[in-house]
């Protein structure tokens, strides 16, 4: 069960922080250019943080108590492959879901 105090601290500070991140450059930096080394790192935040977050969920799924699981692993690969080749998030979710359910039905 999620601790109520941490939940509310996180919700409030995340809201304030997310707004801050979205506003600070528009407001404070204004039209001044940002240093290129900073932009170069910021460009890769999403593509670094999201995979880092998702990798343990795929390799050690919570639902199987952290045991590597074939249907989930295959579904993850299918999602990546469909998303990579179609460049379409919805198609990837659909491909992943179909693979997961087929895998759970056949292997589970």
């Amino acid at each position: 069960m999620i601790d109520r105090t941490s939940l509310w601290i996180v919700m409030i500070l995340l809201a304030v922080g997310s707004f801050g991140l979205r506003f600070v450059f528009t407001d404070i930096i204004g039209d001044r250019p940002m240093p290129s080394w900073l932009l170069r790192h910021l460009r890769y935040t999403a593509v670094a943080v999201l995979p880092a977050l998702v990798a343990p969920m795929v390799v050690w799924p919570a639902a199987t108590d952290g045991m590597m699981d074939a249907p989930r692993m295959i579904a993850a690969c299918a999602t990546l492959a469909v998303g990579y080749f179609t460049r379409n998030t919805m198609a990837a979710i659909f491909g992943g879901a179909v693979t997961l359910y087929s895998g759970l039905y056949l292997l589970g």
Partner: protein
Amino acid sequence: MTSTKRKSTYWTGVRHGAPFILVVTPFALLFGVVATEAGLSIVETMFFTITTFAGASQFTALQLLGDNTPTIVVLLSSLAVNLRMAMYSASLTPYIGGAPLWQRAFAAYLTVDQSYAMSMLAVERYPDWDTRDRIGYFFGVVTPIAPLWYLMTLVGALVGSAIPAGFALDFAVPITFLAMIAPMLRTFTHIAAAFVAVVLSLSLTFVPFNLGLILAGFGGMITGAFVELVLDRRKEAGHD
């Protein structure tokens, strides 16, 4: 004359934003479901989704809160997921930075992947627009997105507990994230950044408090920046 044009950039935005209904609906439904499964009340779920308004970071926070991660790490990791918004804000600034403060504040709150991407496309497509046309278009794009995000979160929260365990909803979050990541892997540099982040994330699980995630994120960012620099230098050298 100008007011008709203004109105038209807003409505052009609405039209261009409409297809995102298909992306936002399932993602918001899923957040509602996952949040209530994690034990959040409807009020808490709605408070979270309306104030933060950034799906990926909301999922991150829920996931880590459920793992009993220290509050500060939950917060830093979720904010790290939103760091890209800072980049969006920075790159939108030349085009909407001249708008009044209240409009910029609203635009900041409404900065999401879709509104950013469409606005930057519009910069290329309609070079003759001024600041007011651009901010009108921006607000147009989010008009179909934001209310639907709230509404579908609520629907998800209301029906969440009715979904049986056989649906393996545990894996809906990783699939959704992977589906967002895959189209971002546009270049070798992006793939290198993601690869290093994954390897670090899987090998740094011994680091306490889930701090490995933050280290892995930094590792991926540094890799991306470094590879980009090396490839740029090589390209320049090749041209000379």
